């Protein structure tokens, strides 16, 4: 996925602003990256370079940290992020079937973003709601006891809501 010049620009500016909120100590590397990802949704190489410069570290070290932790992504996420729980309880209750359903419905594999950047699909290891297994996180919302039909329903209702919102906005203009 190629970033536009504008996206690169935003990444550089955001990461500069975020960095300056912290003291330039190595212990702040992960908190800075987390904040950058919080604002941008991802940490592209351009941002890593800025953060590296601020903390006076070789960029490769920042890259090493970003790629080590599951939380960080280096490409833009979709507008909506779907995270399927693949923890033990969810696995025993058929989590892989749910992941298959999402992959099929969204037409992407886990770790990918749809062409239109509407959805990205990830796996997580337990969100602490094991008694409600299987679980999917839709953006920040926990969807308990999900089934393949619920996947369809959820997508449908969210797409409908998004569409209505767009039309509503268009109407205002």
């Amino acid at each position, binding site marked *: 996925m190629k970033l536009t010049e504008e996206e690169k620009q935003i990444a550089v500016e955001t990461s500069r602003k975020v960095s300056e909120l912290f003291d330039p*100590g*190595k*212990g*702040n*590397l*992960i*908190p800075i*990256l*987390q904040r950058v990802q919080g604002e941008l949704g991802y940490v592209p190489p351009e941002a890593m370079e800025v953060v590296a410069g601020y903390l006076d570290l070789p960029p490769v070290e920042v890259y*090493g*940290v970003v790629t*080590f*932790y*599951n*939380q*960080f992504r280096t490409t833009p996420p979709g507008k909506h992020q779907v995270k399927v729980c*693949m*923890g*033990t*309880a969810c*696995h*025993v*209750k*058929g989590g892989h*079937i749910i992941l*298959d*359903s999402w992959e*099929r419905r969204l037409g992407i594999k886990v770790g990918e973003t749809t062409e239109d950047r509407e959805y990205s699909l990830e796996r*997580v*290891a*337990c*969100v*602490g*709601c*094991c*008694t*409600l*297994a299987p*679980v999917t996180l839709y953006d*920040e*919302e*926990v*969807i*308990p006891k999900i*089934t*393949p*039909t619920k996947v*369809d329903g959820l997508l449908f209702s969210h797409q409908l809501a998004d569409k209505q919102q767009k039309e509503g906005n268009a109407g205002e203009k």
Partner: protein
Amino acid sequence: MENLIDKCCDKCTHAPATPCKDYIKCRKEGPICHQDETCKQKRQDFLAAINLSEGSANLQVLICAGTGCASSGSGKLVKKLEDELAANGLADQVQIKITGCHGFCEQGPLMIVEPRKTFYTRVEEEDVAEIVSSDLVKGEVVERLLFKDPNTGEAAKTYETVPFYARQKRLVLHNCGHINPEALSDYIVKDGYAGFSRALFELTPDQVVDEVKTSGLRGRGGGGFPTGMKWGFVRQAQGDKKYVVCNADEGDPGAFMDRSVLEGDPHAVLEGMMTCGYAVGADEGYIYVRAEYPLAIQRLKIAIAQAEECGIIGDNIMNSGFNFHLKIKAGAGAFVCGEETALLTSIEGNRGMPRVRPPFPANSGLWAKPTCLNNVETFANVPQILRNGGSWYASMGTEKSKGTKIFALTGKVNNTGLVEVPMGISMREIIFDIGGGIQGGKKFKAVQIGGPSGGCLPDELLDRPVDYDSLISVGAMMGSGGLVVMDETTCMVDVARFFLTFTQSESCGKCTPCREGTTRMLEILTRICNGEGKMEDIDTLERLGRVVKNTALCGLGQTCPNPILSTLRYFKDEYIAHIQDKHCPAGNCAALLTFRIDPEKCKGCGKCLKSCPAGAITGEKKMPHVIDVAKCIKCGSCLMGCKFEAIQKV
């Protein structure tokens, strides 16, 4: 005075800058520094309002706002209840209290009416009006919302009689679900910070260490190392600066007790950490929380801010001369960072790879300073030990494992949730008495304990007492305390493969046995699940497992073969069935299955036809449907959807 934590009048001089040593005691028994009946009365009124006595005309409605209940919609209940109370003129008489997790999320959203202890389950927005008009106005319990025993159908009138709770011993969890985790006053009413005050003003640091040693408390993070001994090491370690670190990384994918404690009773963890700081001589603490727990992080932030405001955290705490400051670090999603040295490396801003021990963190931990690192549940035990004494604590449990342990009971069991029981109870009691047995009347097969580092226990081992040492002796491990119950439809080879998939992707790659070993073992397990295994694979797995166990650098590698070795030990026949008969006895491994519809049971509702992504199902309405085996991709969607259990895997 608007809150219990405030000063009663201007005679009270307590503030973080001018601290008073009786601050905590004074909130409940005060005023202490001056005699004033009105001040005393004000305090007593606040206490009475928080702690309703039986038969009180005032009521409290507790609404669970833990992650689980919030996901089933508890947020909407609060607003609705406020409206209904106002409409019925009850707003002054009934107080709404938001609580953390009760550990019974499966039945959520939960609502409790105090002081009557009425326990409502699966409360929906539409039910609120009835709860108000019947229960709160007329005192008539809404029967249909009570918890019903899945086996006997009997309704439980109070939470104390719900079988799930009745047999537990909730010590660490005693506040969870019963106090407002965002209100320091609630915690103080339940004797919060009393243990810490005792430590500060009545005991020397060495005596605190001794008290914890006497209690027999062992680390709840998995290893079971004696906590008092660890504190003693850090106390003796030389250093101008020391740290206390709380491990809230809770990486076992199937355990959530730390989440619930942090969400439901965050001050207990802070109190435990500060007591530790005083004992070992540390003035700074870090809580490393996994990023997947946003609510826990938020609750901790609130708790720390409140404690700072009241001078419970800060410099010269309550005029004792003891300073303590706390910071939160959000993890970034790496299981290995739950390992203590990796966690410390991660706080320092590096890739979270384990270090070689020794030196142990007690001597050279965070930024090479002596560091005392304990798990959330371990710290949450400390306030009560200091309050009630080490020997009180040591009176519970078995000879070598004292106190209680929280388990996260999940999987194919009727009542899933958090279960706190005395050490030494049998697994059978946990699964069948508290857990209410297996879902859908199916047959129990095994319980997996300890997550990716643990093992499986078959039926014949269920009567053994559960403690650290007895579990190790049967090839399992206490681990974090995740209990996943499996029935006859769970495939044990697949379970082993599941855990290896996890450890293989989480292996940090620093040492070869773990990095290469997990990859090879996963390959073999995958092959077996796909029906392509060879008999010699079993020997290879056993040998490889032993090598990795003995040679890996950190606990991740050293324990990752356990799920394989223990399933091989108790369920070897399932491995053999996959290899020799190309058959998965549990009907789980997709490659070895075909899906078919039983024409006798099929009602022709057409639901499966719609849900099939491969267009493999055909049939007329009201006529038995059929699956085209050639087209079927074995996704299982149809099976999950059929209400008539007409679809079978053979």
